[in-house]
């Protein structure tokens, strides 16, 4: 029963565990770079979730071929493409701010930065 549930919903469960890993890294790690890595893992989990929602049993990739009738849902694919690029922009901006913080204070430890 449980094994069957895990086998059927495997991508969703992987997405949940990636989200937990990303959140853990963001909460517990004190290094700002590792927090940004956690943020990236978290956003990857959301992308994986959306792509899993798009999947349809027996569906072909959403590129029209004359003899195929069932295609997977193209809409989440387009949205995730958008999301990945926004995550890239977010990461780059966060890294720049981290560089600025390091140059200003000489540390990346978030606890020490809170004390300043």
């Amino acid at each position, binding site marked *: 029963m449980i094994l069957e549930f895990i086998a059927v919903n495997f991508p969703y469960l992987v997405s949940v565990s990636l989200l937990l890993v990303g959140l853990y890294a963001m909460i517990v790690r004190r290094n700002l770079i590792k927090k940004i890595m956690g943020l990236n893992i978290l956003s990857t989990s959301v992308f994986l979730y959306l792509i899993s929602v798009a999947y349809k049993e027996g569906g072909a990739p959403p590129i029209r071929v004359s003899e195929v009738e069932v295609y997977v849902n193209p809409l989440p694919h387009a949205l995730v493409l958008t999301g990945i*690029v926004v995550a890239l922009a977010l990461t780059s901006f966060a890294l720049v701010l981290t*560089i600025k913080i390091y140059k200003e204070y000489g540390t990346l430890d978030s606890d020490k930065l809170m004390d300043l």
Partner: protein
Amino acid sequence: MMTTVVIQTIARVVVPFLQLFGLYIIVHGPVSPGGGFQGGVIVGASMILLALSYDLSSAETKVSHKVRIAMDSTGALLFAGMGLLCLLVGGVFLEYGIIPLPMAPAEVRGLMILLVGVAIGIHIMALAASLFLHLAEEHDT
């Protein structure tokens, strides 16, 4: 930064093919997996490979800062301009079918989708290279 003759030679051979592959992905976006974002990132990654295997200044001389900013702005303006073009000929924003070309509306839309892909590709390839080169430059100084 650690780099050897082997790395430099392989990078020199691979980079043109990488850029050609990226352009192929951009132009074939409407008919096969791919599109502006993916191809643009591949072309940008070729510049990153160049910067990693040689040094930052060699990548900087290939595509200078001013050229990258120009490409960046060109891509965004091209896309917005295509939307405004539809306004000019009497449609709504980004309604490609209304543009009066001697083709069926469906073909006009297909052509505009290709052009949007190229615009996005130009934008992303400049931006991906720019982000890496500036972040790495900051590390060097």
